[in-house]
């Protein structure tokens, strides 16, 4: 491309800048709305306890060789016996997360709120950008890029002849959507930044079942072989002292 496209300054004034400003304002607004709707989550006693049991069992598994055989056996039975061991999950008592969700309206409510504060503004802004600014070339980045960036930077323009360093308005919207985190953490404080990418990750992790962790931990405890490490330490201590004395 020999001759450059000349972008109208009006595009800068009426597309590029308003788009960014609107994105920032919506981010801030969403932060306050979600703050209003946030319910203080009281963690469930059972879940906390199960988490702690898992941590303790993991420690036990890792450090088992450091305690005497008698203590090891007592603990192993305490954790894994079939009647009332800490890690034993009675059959038929594994609650289905889905069923749990329906039985607990608060959980569904929280999900709804999360979704509301995330999806609705995003759909609206996307529709708005699409409606008013579709097809604009809004900016030009000052360095050349390879063809692979075309789908990232020229979303909405189906021209293969335009140089890749031109950014379409819709792509500018996406860049803003994912790139404003730093700015938000400046405006709203470190932890408050609205991070869409992170939230999407969280959505995927929903429905984690702690009882699964319990039985997995039990299985790995069952196969642990106990070999008391301490007798070795007498020799090692001897070696250490010998080095110290001589």
């Amino acid at each position, binding site marked *: 491309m020999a001759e450059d496209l000349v972008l109208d300054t009006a595009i800068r004034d009426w597309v590029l800048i308003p788009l960014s400003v609107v994105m920032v304002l919506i981010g801030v607004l969403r932060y306050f709305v979600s703050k209003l709707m946030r319910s203080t989550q009281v963690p469930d006693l059972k879940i906390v*306890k199960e988490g702690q049991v898992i941590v303790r069992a993991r420690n036990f598994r890792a450090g088992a060789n450091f305690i005497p055989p008698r203590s090891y056996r007592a603990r192993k039975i305490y954790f894994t016996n079939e009647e009332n061991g800490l890690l034993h999950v009675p059959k038929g008592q594994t609650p289905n997360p889905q069923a749990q969700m329906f039985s607990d309206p608060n959980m569904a409510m929280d999900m709804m709120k999360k979704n509301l504060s995330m999806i609705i503004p995003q759909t609206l802004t996307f529709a708005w950008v699409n409606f008013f600014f579709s097809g604009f070339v809004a900016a030009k980045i000052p360095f050349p890029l390879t063809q692979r960036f075309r789908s990232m930077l020229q979303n909405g323009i189906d021209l293969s002849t335009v140089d890749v360093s031109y950014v379409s308005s819709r792509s500018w919207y996406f860049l803003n959507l994912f790139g404003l985190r730093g700015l938000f953490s400046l405006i709203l404080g470190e932890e408050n930044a609205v991070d869409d990418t992170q939230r999407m990750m969280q959505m995927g992790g929903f429905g984690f079942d702690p009882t699964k962790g319990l039985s997995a931990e039990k299985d790995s405890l069952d196969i642990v072989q106990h070999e008391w490490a301490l007798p070795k330490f007498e020799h090692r201590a001897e070696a250490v002292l010998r080095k110290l004395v001589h």
Partner: protein
Amino acid sequence: MVSKTEQSQLDRLENQVDNGGGGDWEYLCLVRKLKVRRSDKVLKYGLAILNDPKKRSSLGQDEWTLYEQVAIAAMDCQSIDAAKDCIKVLQKKFSESKRVGRLEAMLLEAKGSWAEAEKAYSSLLEDNPLDQVVHKRRVAMAKAQGNISGAIEWLNKYLEIFMADNDAWRELAEIYVSLQMYKQAAFCYEELILSQPTVPLYHLAYADVLYTLGGLENLQMAKKYYASTIDLTGGKNTRALFGICLCTSAIGHLAKGRNKEEKDSPELQSLAVTALEKDYKQRAPEKLSLLTTALKSMKIS
């Protein structure tokens, strides 16, 4: 746990602040982050910031955190009035907050009105049964009143839920030792060794408890744990060296008639004696004679 770099950073900042070199706020932040107990300094420098309207307003939202920090430090230093002022400000700002409620309960505790504090803590726990700080305050309160069995009861209740809390296990172990309930203490120390197998202090404490329990088997185990302490500290721990000597001598007494000589490491004890002598020669030559008589009384040197 405070790592070495953090410790040196803290020391540097503390030195700087003590000499009036500025950085007060950074120092307070670091103290809060590392959860170290520097109540007198926090009170002094924190109050200085809070009493200076210009400095205070420049903190923005962190102002309230500082109020909380200073209030707790003031209670620790028994300057009840300062704590009261801080809590009053917080109360005005966050009237419904549980966190402020906790501070108020702590103030009652600091004043020594145990019954009222107990009531306040119970009502806080009703709202949020998983508040670790409140659980721990209760234990501390029982201990402060001299109600050791009560403290044990609270701690056990707490550990039933938060069983991965090292500090609580350690506290429980120390309480059991103070009551001479060594079997229970041994269990707690085992728990600590499990969670942090490379901390020599736990090995040492466990060995002490085993030695105190006595009996051939326990003594042999104690010796092994003293040995592991020596290994983990690189032979720098005098208590562990003495422990080896004491264990060997006691085992010798017990196993005398039985002729059951299962010596894995016959040299360990003589090496420990040599290391002790060398250490004393280097650091306290005038006490060397004491060492020799002590070792002689064990009939091993």
